[in-house]
C-alpha cells in the first residue's frame, strides 16, 4: 500500500509541488444500536482510498480518490497540485513547514481482544439485554450502542516520511429516557455518548454495563418528579465525565492554533486567546494543569504519529494555571513561531489533516469527590453531560447535565432535575479550588468532535477528575 501513497506523492511532485504527502487508508467501522430489548441497527462500513496534499509556493491543494490503482493515485497527486495552483490565485502570506524529525516506523494501538472478532451474536445479546433490563424497570425508551473503528494507514511524504499505523478503537454506552407530561429525562452510563478508547473489546467488558442498567432507569424516573435545579450563584461540583467535556470545549478548542490564527473564523470560530500572552496569561487557578498527551495508553486521542508524520508527544497546555501551549501542525506552528505540536489528524483518507485535540486532560489534584462534598456548605453536584453550547471565541459556555444533587452542610441531599451552569472561561477556571485525585482519574473519550469544512469527526481523549468551582451561575433556563 505504501506504493499507492508513493505514486500519489510522485504525481504531485511531477506536477510542480515543492512538498507533498499522501495517506493511503483502509478503514472498517461497525456499530450496533438496540432499543427496548431489540437490536435496531447494525452498520458495517469499509473505506479504502488515498488522499494527497500538495504545496505549491505557499498554497495547498488536496485530492482524494477511492480504492485507486497506482495510476489513479498518481493522477490524484497531479490533481492536488492543480488545485494548489488554483489556490494560488487567491494568495496569502508565505507558508513554510516547521522542522520535525522525519518519522519512519510502525505503530499499533494496544488491543487485547479484537472487537471486530467478537461474535455479532454476543454483541447483540449484550445490547438487547441491557435495553431489556432498562425497559423492564419502567423506562419507555431504553437505548444502547457500541462503535468499533479499525484503521490502517500508510503515510509517505516528499521529505522521507514512511509510516504505517494500525489503530483500533471501540466503546459503548446506554441510556434510559423517561417521558413525562411536559419534558423528558435521561440518564446514561458510563457517559452521555458512551466511553471510548484506543483499545480492544476489553474496553467494553470493563465498563460492566449490566451492573448499571437498573440504576440509570430508576434515576431517570426519579428525575421526572425531582425539584428543578434552583437558579443563582453557588459552589459547583462537577463529575469527571462533565469535566471532560468542560475541558474539551473551553480549553481544548480554545488552544487550537488554527483557530487562534483566524483560519477557522467563518465556521468553528476563533479563540479568545492572544498568542502574545502565551506563557503569561493566567488561564485558571494554580490547581489547573492541562496537558496534550498523545502517548497515553488506551486513551481515545492516542497515536504513534500524527497525520503529518510527527511523532506523538506530551506537552503542557496549562501549567499551574498559566497558559503555556497550543495545538498545532507544521504550517500553523511555523506561522506562529512555536514548536510543532504534532496535532494534525484527518477523518479518513478523503479529508485534509487539520489541527485536532489529542488527549487534552487535567492532571489529578490533591482531593477527592467525597472531600469536595464534605467541604461544601451550600452547593450543587452535577453529573453526566446533557447539552453543551459555547460561543465562537470559546469564552462563554452553557452546559446542562443529566442530574444534579443539592449539597447542604457537607452532605449530598435532594436530587435536582435540569441542572445547568454557565460561565466565562478564565473566570470559571480561576474559581477552581478543589480537584480530584489520581484514583479518580479517568481517560474519557469523545468520539464525535466536529470541525472543518467539509466536516470532519475527530476522536479525542480527556483525562479528567471531579472538581469544585466557586460562585458559579446555575439554573439557567428558558
Amino acid at each position, binding site marked *: 500500500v505504501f506504493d499507492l501513497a508513493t505514486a500519489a506523492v510522485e504525481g504531485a511532485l511531477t506536477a510542480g509541488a515543492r512538498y507533498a504527502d499522501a495517506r493511503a487508508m483502509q478503514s472498517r467501522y461497525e456499530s450496533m*444500536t438496540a*432499543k427496548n430489548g431489540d437490536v*435496531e*441497527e447494525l*452498520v*458495517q462500513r*469499509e473505506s*479504502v*482510498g488515498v488522499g494527497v496534499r500538495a504545496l505549491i509556493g505557499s*498554497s*495547498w*491543494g*488536496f*485530492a*482524494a480518490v*477511492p*480504492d485507486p490503482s497506482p495510476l489513479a493515485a498518481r493522477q490524484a497527486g*497531479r*490533481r492536488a497540485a*492543480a*488545485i494548489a*495552483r*488554483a*489556490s494560488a*490565485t*487567491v*494568495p*496569502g*502570506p508565505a507558508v513554510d513547514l516547521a522542522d520535525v524529525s522525519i518519522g519512519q516506523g510502525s505503530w499499533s494501538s494496544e488491543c487485547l481482544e479484537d472487537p471486530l472478532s467478537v*461474535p455479532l451474536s454476543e454483541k447483540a445479546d449484550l445490547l*438487547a439485554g441491557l435495553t431489556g433490563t432498562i425497559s423492564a424497570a419502567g423506562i*419507555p*425508551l431504553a*437505548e444502547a*450502542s457500541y462503535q468499533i473503528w479499525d484503521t490502517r494507514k500508510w503515510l509517505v511524504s516528499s521529505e522521507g516520511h514512511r509510516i504505517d499505523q494500525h489503530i483500533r478503537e471501540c466503546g459503548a454506552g446506554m441510556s434510559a429516557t423517561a417521558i413525562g407530561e*411536559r*419534558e*423528558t429525562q435521561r440518564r446514561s452510563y458510563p457517559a452521555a455518548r458512551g466511553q471510548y478508547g484506543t483499545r480492544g473489546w476489553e474496553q467494553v467488558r470493563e465498563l460492566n454495563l449490566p451492573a448499571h442498567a437498573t440504576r440509570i432507569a430508576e434515576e431517570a424516573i426519579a428525575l421526572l418528579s425531582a425539584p428543578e435545579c434552583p437558579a443563582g450563584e453557588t459552589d459547583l461540583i462537577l463529575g469527571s465525565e462533565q469535566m471532560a467535556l468542560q475541558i474539551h470545549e473551553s480549553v481544548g478548542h480554545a488552544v487550537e492554533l488554527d483557530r487562534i490564527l*483566524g*483560519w*477557522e*473564523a*467563518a465556521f468553528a470560530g476563533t479563540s479568545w486567546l492572544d498568542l502574545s500572552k502565551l506563557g503569561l496569561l493566567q488561564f485558571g487557578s494554580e490547581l489547573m494543569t492541562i496537558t496534550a498527551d498523545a502517548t497515553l495508553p488506551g486513551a481515545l486521542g492516542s497515536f504513534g504519529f500524527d497525520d503529518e508524520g510527527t511523532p506523538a508527544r506530551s506537552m503542557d497546555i496549562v501549567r499551574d494555571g498559566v497558559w503555556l501551549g497550543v495545538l498545532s501542525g507544521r504550517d500553523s506552528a511555523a506561522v506562529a513561531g512555536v514548536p510543532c505540536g504534532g496535532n494534525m489528524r484527518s477523518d479518513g483518507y*478523503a479529508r485534509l489533516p487539520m489541527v485536532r485535540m489529542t488527549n487534552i486532560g487535567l492532571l489529578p489534584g490533591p482531593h477527592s469527590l467525597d472531600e469536595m462534598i464534605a467541604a461544601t456548605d451550600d452547593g450543587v453536584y452535577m453529573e453526566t453531560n446533557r*447539552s453543551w*453550547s459555547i*460561543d*465562537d*471565541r470559546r*469564552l*462563554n459556555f*452553557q452546559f*446542562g447535565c443529566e442530574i444534579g444533587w443539592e449539597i447542604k452542610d457537607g452532605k449530598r441531599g435532594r436530587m435536582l432535575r435540569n441542572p445547568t451552569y*454557565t460561565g*466565562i472561561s478564565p473566570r470559571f477556571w480561576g474559581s477552581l479550588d478543589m480537584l480530584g485525585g489520581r484514583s479518580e482519574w479517568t481517560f474519557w473519550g469523545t468520539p464525535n468532535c466536529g470541525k472543518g*469544512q467539509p466536516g470532519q469527526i475527530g476522536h479525542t481523549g480527556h483525562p479528567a477528575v471531579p472538581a469544585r468551582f466557586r460562585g458559579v*451561575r446555575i439554573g*439557567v*433556563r*428558558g
Partner: protein
Amino acid sequence: VTAAEPVGLAAGTDDTRLTAIADQVLGLAAAAAPGAEADVHVIVRDDGLTRFALSFVHQNVAEEDLRVRLRVAVDGRWATADTNRVDPAALARLVDSTVDAARHRPVDPSFPGMAPPEPAATTGNWDAATAATSPDQRAAVVRDFVAAAGGLQAAGYLATSSERAAYANTAGQRLHGSCTSATVDGIARTANSDGVARRSSVRLADISGTEAGAVAATAARNATAPSELEPGDYEVVLEPSCVTDMLKFLGIYGFNGQSVAEGRSFVALGAAQFDPTIELWDDATDALSTSLPYDGDGTPRRRVDLVVKGVTSAVVHDRRTAAAAGTTSTGHAVLGSGAWGPFPTDIRLAPGAGGTAAELAGRMGRGLWVSDFWYTRILDPRTTVVTGLTRNGVWLVEDGKVVRPVRNLRFTQSFVDALGPEAVRGVGSVIRSHADRWGGGTFAVPSLHLARWHFTGGAGG
C-alpha cells in the same frame, strides 16, 4: 490533468453503470441467500470545497467517492453494510458479510419490508456546468467575495457537489437520480464585528461571490463597535439563517415520525400550535431541491404539509414509522441517520408580506435584529428548549430604527413557543436558500419578526 479539466466520477459516470452495479449486487445476494429481501444504493459523488480565511485560500479540496450500500433481510433478520470498493471480489465480500451479519441477528418484528415499485416524481435537479466546476472556477468566486469585502478580512467557503445514484431492491423497485448544489458561505470582518452571507442553489451560476461579499461587508461595517445590552426578553427580527436553524430543530425533534411514536415530540396533530401566519412544508421534489428524489428506503420523496395556517397537520415517515403509525411512508428515511428516525430535510416556510429583514425591523418597537445563530443545542426535545448564541451581527432597534450594534448574547428559548399563536408579528417576503449540513438538503425561508425571545446573558468576557 489541469485545473480547468472537468474531472469527476459523478460527472463522468452514467446511470447505466450504477444500475448495473446495483443489479450485480442483488444477483450476488440472491445467490448467497435465496429468497432473502435485499436493496442496494449505489451513490457516486464529486465534492469540491475551496476554503478561505484572512482573505486567502488556505484549504482547497476535492473528493470523489463511489459507495455501495447493501441491506439484506433474511426471515426478518436484517443487516446493512457498505463499501467504496466495487471490484467483483469486494462486492462478493460485501454480500457475504451482510448476509452473515443478518443471519446472526435476532428477528426484527418491526422490519417493514422493502419499498414496492413506485416511480419518483422527478429524477432530481442536475446542472451539468456545476458538476463540471473546476478548482479555478471555485477560486474565481472566492476572489470575487474577497474583492467585494472591500478590504475587510474575508473567510468562508465555496463548495460544489454533484451526486448520481441508483437504487434497486428485490421487490422490483428501480430508481435513479442525480443532483447538484453550490454554496457560498462567508463572513467579512472588521476589528470587532463580523457580517455574514450565505447562498445556496442547484447551480453555481446562481451564486455571485461579489453579491455575497458585499452583503457580508455591509453587515460587518454596520455592526462595528458593538456594546453590551442587558439580557432579558426582547422582540426579535431573525434573518433566514436563524429561521433555518430553528426549523432544523423542529424538524429533527418534532416533525419526526419516530419522535412522535416515542412521545419525545411536541407535535399534536390538528392542534393550533403555531401562529396562523406559519405555513411549513417539506419538499425535496421542487425546483430548489438539492436532494435525490427518493429516500434511504427507496421510497419516492413527496411533499408533506407540516403546518397549515398554524395548525400542525403532519409529520414525516419512513417505512418503519409509517407501518407503526398505520400510514404510508412519506419518503423521509435518511440514509445513515441511525437512531434519529425520519426527519424533514428540505423545509420551506411560506413567505409573508413583510419585505426584507430591514423592513421587518422597521416595524419593530424595541427589539433585536439578529443575523445568525451559533452553537444551538437542545436542552429538552419535548419542549424544544434550545440554548445558543447570536453571531455575525446583532442590532438594537427602537421605534423601527437601528440604534446601535450590540455584542453577542446567549439565549435559552423554546423554539416552538417562539412560533406559537400570537407570537409571530411579521413574516418576510424574501426567501433565502441555505444548505442543511445535517440532512444534506436545502431549506428555503424568509426572515421572521417574533414577539419574544429570551436572552439569558452576554457572550463577552
